[in-house]
């Protein structure tokens, strides 16, 4: 399959059938005809193809801009002040500028996954052959819902994935171009372009995860994926410890292979941070998961690692400085992140090992994973013995240092969460490390406090000291990422989700930029698991939710099963596995509802939007990748809730529930436009507190298509949670109760009374066969 046409002139051709001269073959677009589904309306959509769909959504969910800066500094006409109704030297307005930055962020995010997928694919095709057949999940025909939906192709082998990447790359370059000075001028068109980038991102992520699942023997969508260990406490510091950071599993795979082949797991511990950790554990559960992105600095400061291997994405860019403090070498493995290290890819391994062990070089760049495997293991075995005497700061050291505190408060001002660092340091100066320890769980580990401190106090190390005991106990089980949701699972739950009887699917994804620590993610998960929502998780969130135990000492992974069903807690995998979450939504439309999938984006998104009660939650969303992932969800009609730092993404996409005219929907049966109420109320929403978020999530799972039974279930959770966290009844039930039967039985009287006050009229809110697409109307009345 190739999107290029092709003209071959073969001067001489000889094969078993005979030999010929001057054969000329001309072939147009070649599509795999083994896919009987006819081509849908929008194969390989360009920047403008889905604009009408985007504008439908953006008309309901208007951006509320919160400029993160009043200026634009993107060209030498700048800086331009865009405050209020000022325009830049290029004519741009504040609204367009904010959206432009959103677009850029989404392009960076999608490029990151796409570049990662491309890089891995080149490598994996070389190793496993271009024709290696794709295998994603057991009991699954729809192997690549995003690719099928967007591109209109059905990949069978690794090389088919290239066509998807070619397309994504071409489109991304178009989008990046649109951010140039003097290009797009309309903020809503910028938003639409950001949606496009998001959609592309899900294609790229799908490619990336398919590649690695196919070739590296990662779990193929199995609900009972094996358990691995997570946390500081799971690393045996008596072994030589390799710490792998990033998002590209390939170098780590070769480290693990080398350890296996040489039977060295008894001597060497390999622990990972961020997505590399997820993917390592999907590859081999002997690889330990240290923790999410926020643990990088604090784990380094523990002094435990003897070697650091970084690949790409979300690695601390000052890793060399930090490594130097520890006296451990760094191996960089990606052209995207070369860190100024000399390229030793073509040097003999033992030379590199010698230089690293002897400390002649602070690190090495090795692009070839196989060589990384050998060099890393040999190096760590050489380095570890030299670090036996390494001692982290003692309590006395810390007390002594703390005495130099100038009370300048710079640390607090630098802290994104305003943690009481100065106070804790002052306590420490008196030998009391309690407050330091209290900071630990709320701290996102960013190190800005240290960087700001005029006394250069190693504050992260201080917090570690304060939390010593806690850290020793940080050891939790985690089901490894299982990858996609199986077709057979979709078939079983599709009905329940679409009619609302399974109250919703909550996807906990993204990074660890939490306002109050990772524990909130676990609380959110627990609340919805208790209520038998389906909870799926990826990335840092999937780690953080592992970190609470109940009275019996069990964590959520132990208490809830891993199947995609009500009350299931599914670790999908690393960040690229997020494509399986949108994939599952797409598959509900395709497999359960039998909507045509191929290149049929609008219809599927319309289906998901109106029927699938899924909500994305990125409580600590930090990165540009998180921005593009969310953006891909929006275009597909899935609302996303973020934490308060998420407001820094420069705008929310907010519905106005009280504006009846905003919530008109076609009834596909009749063509009539009917009022369906504000469901879902928002498309992108930053909550101030976890409590607010929980209640909002419960509200956002409502869909026009809910049956009365389904709506009643959803409303009962919403009301219950509102009472629990706000201490009051919601004040907006009139928008969600469509008829009496929607009211949860146990609350009927109370609610009817409330509704009467609000002037509620039964049947004002319709329950149509809902669609936003004119063309989905089956007949007009």
């Amino acid at each position: 399959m190739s999107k290029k046409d092709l003209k071959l002139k073969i001067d001489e051709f000889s094969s078993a059938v005979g030999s010929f001269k001057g054969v000329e073959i001309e072939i147009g677009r070649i599509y795999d005809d083994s896919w009987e589904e006819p081509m849908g309306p929008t194969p390989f959509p360009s920047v403008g193809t889905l604009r009408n769909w985007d504008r439908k959504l953006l008309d309901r969910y208007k951006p509320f801009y919160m400029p993160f800066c009043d200026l634009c500094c993107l060209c030498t006409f700048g800086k331009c002040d865009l405050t209020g109704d000022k325009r830049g030297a290029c004519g741009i307005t504040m609204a367009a500028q904010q959206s432009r930055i959103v677009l850029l962020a989404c392009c960076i995010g999608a490029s990151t996954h796409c570049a990662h997928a491309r890089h891995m694919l080149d490598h994996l095709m070389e190793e496993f052959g271009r024709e290696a057949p794709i295998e994603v999940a057991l009991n699954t025909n729809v192997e690549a819902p995003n690719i099928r939906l967007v591109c209109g192709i059905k990949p069978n082998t690794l090389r088919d994935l290239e066509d998807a990447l070619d397309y994504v790359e071409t489109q991304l370059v178009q989008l990046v171009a649109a951010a140039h000075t003097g290009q797009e001028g309309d903020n809503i068109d910028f938003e639409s372009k950001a949606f496009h980038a998001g959609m592309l991102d899900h294609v790229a992520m799908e490619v990336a995860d398919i590649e690695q699942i196919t070739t590296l023997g990662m779990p193929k969508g199995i609900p009972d994926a094996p358990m691995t260990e997570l946390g500081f406490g799971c690393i045996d510091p008596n072994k030589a410890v390799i710490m792998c950071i990033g998002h590209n599993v390939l170098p780590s795979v070769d480290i693990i292979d080398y350890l296996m082949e040489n039977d060295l797991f008894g001597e060497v511990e390999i622990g990972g941070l961020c997505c590399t950790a997820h993917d390592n554990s999907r590859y081999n559960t002997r690889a330990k998961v240290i923790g999410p992105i926020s643990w990088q600095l604090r784990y380094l400061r523990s002094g435990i690692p003897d070697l650091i291997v970084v690949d790409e994405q979300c690695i601390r860019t000052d890793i060399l400085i930090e490594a130097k403090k520890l006296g451990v070498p760094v191996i960089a493995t990606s052209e995207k992140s070369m860190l100024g290290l000399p390229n030793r890819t073509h040097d003999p391994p033992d030379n590199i090992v010698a230089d690293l062990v002897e400390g002649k070089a602070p690190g090495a760049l090795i692009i070839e994973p196989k060589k990384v495997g050998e060099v890393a293991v040999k190096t760590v075995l050489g380095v570890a013995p030299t670090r036996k005497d390494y001692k982290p700061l003692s309590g006395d050291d810390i007390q002594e240092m703390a005495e130099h505190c100038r009370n300048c408060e710079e640390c607090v001002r630098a802290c994104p969460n305003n943690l009481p660092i100065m106070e804790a340091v002052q306590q420490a100066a008196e030998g009391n490390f309690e407050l330091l320890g209290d900071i630990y769980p709320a701290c996102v580990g960013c190190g800005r406090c240290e960087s700001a401190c005029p006394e250069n106090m190693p504050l992260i190390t201080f917090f570690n000291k304060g939390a010593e005991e806690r850290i020793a106990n940080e050891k939790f089980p985690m089901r490894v990422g299982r990858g996609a949701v199986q077709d057979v699972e979709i078939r079983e739950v599709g009905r329940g989700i679409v009619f609302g009887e399974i109250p919703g699917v909550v996807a906990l994804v993204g990074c660890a930029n939490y306002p109050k620590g990772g524990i909130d993610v676990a609380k959110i998960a627990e609340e919805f698991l208790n209520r038998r929502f389906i909870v799926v998780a990826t990335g840092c969130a999937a780690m953080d939710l592992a970190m609470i135990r109940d009275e019996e000492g069990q964590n959520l992974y132990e208490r809830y099963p891993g199947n995609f069903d009500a009350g299931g807690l599914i670790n999908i995998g690393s960040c690229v596995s997020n494509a399986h979450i949108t994939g599952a939504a797409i598959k509900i439309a395709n497999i359960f509802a039998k909507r045509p999938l191929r290149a049929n984006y609008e219809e599927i998104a319309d289906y998901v939007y109106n029927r699938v009660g899924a909500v994305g939650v990125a409580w600590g969303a930090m990165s540009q990748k998180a921005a593009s992932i969310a953006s891909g969800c929006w275009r597909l009609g899935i609302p996303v809730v973020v934490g308060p730092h998420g407001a820094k993404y420069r705008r929310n996409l907010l519905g106005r529930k009280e504006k009846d005219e905003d919530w008109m929907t076609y009834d596909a049966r009749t063509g009539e436009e009917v009022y369906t109420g504000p469901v879902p109320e928002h498309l992108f929403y930053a909550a101030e507190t976890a409590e607010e978020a929980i209640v909002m999530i419960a509200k956002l799972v409502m869909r026009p298509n809910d049956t009365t039974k389904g709506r009643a279930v959803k409303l009962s959770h919403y009301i219950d949670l509102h009472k629990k966290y706000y201490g009051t009844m919601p004040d907006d039930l009139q928008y969600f109760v469509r008829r009496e039967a929607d009211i949860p039985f146990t609350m009927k009287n109370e609610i009817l009374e409330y509704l009467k006050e609000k002037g509620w009229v039964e049947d004002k809110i319709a329950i149509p066969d809902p669609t936003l697409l004119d063309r989905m109307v089956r007949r007009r009345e």
Partner: protein
Amino acid sequence: MAARMIPGQTAEIAGPKKAFVIPKPEVAASLIKRAKRPLLVVGSKAVETQTMDGDLIDTAIRLHNTGRLQVVATAHIVGEFMKRGAEGIHSMQMMNLGDRLRDPDWRGLDGEGAYDLVAFAGTLYYLEWLVESGLKSFAQDLTTISLSRSYQPNANWSLGTMKADKWKEVIDVIVKSITEDN
């Protein structure tokens, strides 16, 4: 008043258009008193923010009781007000509120008309910073006041950065002055 135009968080600096520092508490009070329809926004940090009255919830209730302004609790904290017996406190989340405040056609929490002044207190610093940034550019007719302990550059008016004790006094003077007749 030892007010300084130094923002709370280091990097959340002022843009070209920045808040006037409120020179003394009475000015804040008089801005609020002279407003036709003022709104006090009480954020999720109110419970942990100590004031002369106890905490900021208590202070907000005291202000609420003057009847001179409406009070809205953001996030989930309206329950705190109810626990303490306050009635008529509105509840609306920060994003919903910000989005409506920039809409000149919005009729307010009570449906009676648009606000002309909004004061913020007890918020997450950066969240207030962002919402006020949105209002600065997209609700230019609305006056915003930050009663934060740290300078908020994106408001129209802001208290300067000061110590906790000083701030308690300042808030108390403001409240007293609003409570007084005229």
